[in-house]
């Protein structure tokens, strides 16, 4: 399912008021409205089978973009075309091919077991009985929730509920899936299971995924490509690793000597490279090229007991990026 987002803008009107009773009275008598531009001139093309991560701080416009793509909102300007459909026309043929999971919003029926919601979805999406049974069994096994199917949704843990949400969203085998914070609040094991599952589903059914997450591990594990939104504007569209390299091209080196080298040798090296030496261990965060040169120099001094070259934590890198995105792009 290919997606073409062209010059999309979305504005909301809201009113502002000061806190307290006085503010409430003032607002009641003379309400002051203001327009908030949630998205401005967004362009994005996604090919069938791609998993694209949408990145941005809180309030950047990620969820608004997702809502526009599934037809929950009407744009103020621009167009979206998803396999020939305009999302906000909400044609049944289109709705049968998409699915949305919003990590912070419950889409299952709260008071009844998930199995009942699944049955309702079967009727809504007109899934043939045999296919429904097969898909449900497959999804339930993959997500390991066989024993939770008949428990009232409100009594499930957050992780279990999220798995049920994902099952409900995929029962009709959609071709285009939007995941908004699908791992929010989950423990690391559940996060990893959901990531594995998304990857599996993408490969098995060649489904297109759009994913927002504040967990950079989700993005790193799933998305080769990311689309960065900052204050409602598209800031970057491309390879995630390239973005990370652009922000912080350094890697971390840890090099342990059998015994500490002469001090003047180290001081001499430190004139050319930025690194720390604590007892007999060298640590440095340097770009690829410099790191290779430093490594060569260290090997000339002595063979290491151990040494490692690691990527810097992507969470930290992105934190640096979001503090001032324009600086890096």
């Amino acid at each position: 399912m290919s997606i073409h987002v062209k010059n999309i803008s979305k504005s909301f009107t809201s009113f502002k008021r000061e806190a307290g009773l006085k503010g409430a009275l003032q607002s009641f008598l003379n309400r002051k409205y203001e327009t908030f531009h949630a998205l401005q001139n967004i362009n994005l093309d996604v090919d069938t089978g791609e998993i694209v991560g949408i990145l941005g701080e809180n309030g950047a416009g990620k969820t608004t973009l997702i809502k526009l793509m599934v037809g929950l909102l009407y744009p103020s300007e621009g167009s979206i075309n998803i396999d020939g459909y305009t999302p906000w026309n909400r044609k049944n043929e289109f709705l049968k091919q998409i699915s949305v999971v919003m990590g912070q919003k419950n889409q299952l029926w709260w008071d009844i077991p998930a199995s009942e919601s699944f049955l309702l979805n079967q009727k809504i999406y007109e899934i043939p009985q045999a296919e429904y049974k097969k898909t449900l069994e497959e999804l339930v096994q993959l997500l390991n929730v066989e024993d939770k199917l008949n428990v009232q949704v409100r009594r499930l843990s957050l992780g279990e509920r999220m798995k049920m949400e994902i099952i409900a969203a995929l029962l009709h085998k959609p071709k285009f899936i939007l995941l908004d914070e699908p791992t929010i609040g989950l423990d690391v094991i559940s996060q990893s299971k959901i990531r594995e599952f998304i990857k599996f589903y993408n490969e098995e059914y060649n489904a297109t995924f759009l994913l927002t997450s504040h967990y950079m591990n989700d993005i790193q594990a799933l998305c080769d490509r990311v689309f960065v939104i900052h204050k409602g504007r598209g800031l970057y569209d491309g390879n995630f690793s390239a973005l990370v390299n652009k922000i912080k091209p350094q890697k971390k080196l840890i090099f342990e000597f059998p015994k500490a080298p002469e001090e003047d040798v180290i001081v001499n090296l430190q004139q050319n490279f930025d690194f720390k030496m604590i007892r007999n261990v060298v640590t440095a965060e340097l770009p690829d090229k410099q790191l290779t040169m430093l490594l060569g120099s260290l090997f000339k001094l002595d063979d290491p007991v151990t040494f490692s070259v690691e990527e810097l934590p992507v969470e930290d890198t992105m934190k640096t990026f979001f503090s001032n995105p324009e600086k890096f792009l």
Partner: protein
Amino acid sequence: MTWIQTLEYRANLYVGLFSILSGILIEYLIWKQIFVARGTELIRGFTLNELVAFIFLSMIVGQLKSSWVTSIEMIEAIRSGGLNKYLIRPISFYTYHLMMFIGQNSLFYMAYFTLIAAFPFIFPGLAFTTNFQIFGFMNALILAVYLSYNMYYMMVCVSFWFHEVRALVIAYNVANIILSGQIIPLRFFPEVYLKIIAFTPLPFLVDFPVSIATGQLPPEFWASKFLIGFCWCLFTWALGKIMYYFGIKQYGGYGA
């Protein structure tokens, strides 16, 4: 599915049924005292038994057609972003909630239909004296339920613009209970009022089906009344659709 949902909360179901039966009992006791106090056999052409039978049926019809709880849920869905759940699926918000409303009430419907079935024995000769009356009543009841749902739906759509309109629904519900003849028959209201409401759909919500069942409305008037009622259904349905069409464009999908 709504049965399953309803049965999850057994106490709520019992209390719901009990509160309606107790309401009918209170009405009976009040009117009995009024007749005794006035020392008369007839009030506005009704004997005590006829009046109690009429009110008894009116209350049942009033309960069956009232979708205010569903409307509050729908308004909350628009206000809090819960509407998303319906918009992303190939289902209609209008039809889904109409079905949910009928489903949620179906257990009550069964209880009420048991009461209605017992009507000829409780009030012999006062209602459902012919099969034609039963047939007419059932059709008028369907019309009342559908028309009432459409009227609530229009109020639900107002929430696209004003967000919080639950007070409007509650106010309408209270006014509707009185003005549609659910507690006191419309014939007891002043002439001026009757002339005004003749131009509204209100008489079709309670008075019309009950008048058919109790024989207060002769069969020769049914066809024209059904036609007018049908036109009201069509008009309110179309108005609801138009309001939704424009209202959904205001929807912000907040809370998600």
